């Protein structure tokens, strides 16, 4: 794409990578600098209560680097540690990064959030919940100071609960086919409301409700990335130059957009019905078509592209 050569690692799966692999491969080689590195051993003071092992980064890596020579701040959740959850330490690291972006105009004006999280860590539920509230507020404040915050969703844990709300607070959302986002996960809905409401073992159903393609089609994500490091990088680069700000006009536009979606698609009983309602000629083909064919369908679809977030 330009003057910074990435390696064959560009083709590696985002879904299968760890948070540190994603950062190292997404950013220009050698450009990543971490804040509060694992050598500082900042770990959860609470997990020991539950006889659970802690991690020296608490599953949240924050720092700065370059993306095709542009300076960026970055945060990445490790979905394989406690489900990438928001907790006292992991949440505070992200809060600190966002507040720095908000307050220090010398810092990069772009923040990338590599989300991979089931939401709030139950073992630290109160601290985690509050951290999400602080993150959401800090994102709005940073955006109001001219910072663009982009969420990248394509990890095993997806972006659910507080992570789903965090993503939707960002300026832009990039998602892959394997990326999933929402509030209550299918298992939680099944446990609380019964298998008739949501059969969490029906993988095709789960994907059609929460997966990357349907989110992109209804305008719930702003870009669709191939499940590779290069796929996510290209999608971010395509979005980076222009992002909506948080003001009354934008939120009115978001309101109209969301109310319109509820009105237009609210009576649909399945994702297939939604896709048909959106004007997709062969909704059944959406699931199995390749990424290029899917991208072609998205182009020109009303409501998929907008500045109302």
């Amino acid at each position, binding site marked *: 794409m330009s003057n910074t050569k990435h390696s064959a690692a560009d083709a590696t799966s985002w879904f299968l990578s760890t948070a540190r692999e994603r950062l190292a491969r997404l950013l220009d080689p050698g450009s990543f600098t971490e804040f509060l590195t694992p050598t500082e051993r900042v770990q959860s003071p*609470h997990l020991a209560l539950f006889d659970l092992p802690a991690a020296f980064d608490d599953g949240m890596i924050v720092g700065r680097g370059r993306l095709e020579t542009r300076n960026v701040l970055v945060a990445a959740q490790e979905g394989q540690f406690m489900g990438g959850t928001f907790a006292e330490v992991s949440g505070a690291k992200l809060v600190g*990064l966002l507040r720095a*972006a908000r307050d220090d105009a010398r810092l990069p004006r772009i923040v990338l959030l590599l989300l991979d999280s089931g939401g709030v860590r139950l073992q630290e539920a109160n601290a985690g919940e509050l951290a*999400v509230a602080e993150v959401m507020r*800090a994102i709005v404040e940073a955006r109001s100071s001219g910072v663009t915050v982009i969420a990248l969703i394509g990890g095993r844990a997806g972006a659910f609960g*507080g992570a789903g709300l965090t*993503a939707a607070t960002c300026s832009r959302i990039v998602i892959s086919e394997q990326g999933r986002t929402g509030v209550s996960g299918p298992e939680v809905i099944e446990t609380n409301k019964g298998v008739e409401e949501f059969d969490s073992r029906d993988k095709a159903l789960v994907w059609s409700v929460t997966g990357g393609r349907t989110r992109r089609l209804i305008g719930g994500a702003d870009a669709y990335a191939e499940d590779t490091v290069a796929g996510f990088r290209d999608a971010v680069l395509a979005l980076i130059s222009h992002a909506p700000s948080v003001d009354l006009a934008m939120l009115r536009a978001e309101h109209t957009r969301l109310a319109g979606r509820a009105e237009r698609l609210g009576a649909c009983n399945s994702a297939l019905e939604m896709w048909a309602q959106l004007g997709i000629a062969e909704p059944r083909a959406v699931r199995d078509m390749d990424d290029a064919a899917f991208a072609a369908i998205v182009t020109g679809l009303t409501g998929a592209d907008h500045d109302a977030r």
Partner: protein
Amino acid sequence: MTLDEILSSLFPTGHGIKPRPNHLILGTGKRVDGGTVEVVGIADGEALGIEGVLPLAGRVLDIVATGSKAPILVIVDTQGQLMSRRDEMLGLNEYLAHLAKCLLLASRSGHPTVGLNYGKAVAGAFLATALATDILVALPDAEPSVMDLPSMARVTKLPEDKLKELSQTSPVFAPGLVFMKAVGAVAQVWDPAKPLADQFEATLAVVPARDTRDALGAERGGRPIAAQIARRVAHQASGGDDV
């Protein structure tokens, strides 16, 4: 306290908040000095889904559009986000975040926002409403939480008794007002025996200009290191050595 008792005590000179079939609270009340308080919220423990979010967010945007600086009171009793395949399919995360953003815009636009939790306040619905305000207060019978203890026991695979025992030594995870206060989420607990109107005025006088909830959690010991970690990250990001 019931919602009616709360509203009478908050607005002794009267208010225009009628009970609504959809359990949403929308209207205005009068301050002791005659000024207007904009009131939005959700009552009766109702779950917050798309149909609840839209009128609330729309009302907040209309308030911002007036250009007034009237305070906004967000009254909350909700069992949490609506658990529904339909709402998830439509992107409930975007709707809940939209409501939070509208409230945050209001506070940035000069409306002091005060959350008041009198019943339940759970998980995603809590984030979209009461936790998106400048300051959150509660009545003593409020039950803010992320998840109830039996469900938490199921997910963490720990016996409920063990969780109850652990909650005695750590406020960081267990549901309830005492713990949410300790971590800094709830700033004040109002006294139902005294006029709420006076307590509302007193709260309005101390609405913080910045997010101070992590500092509060450190002071109260419920969230011992969050504030310090956020500061350290920001300091290192700005090129300083660790503090």
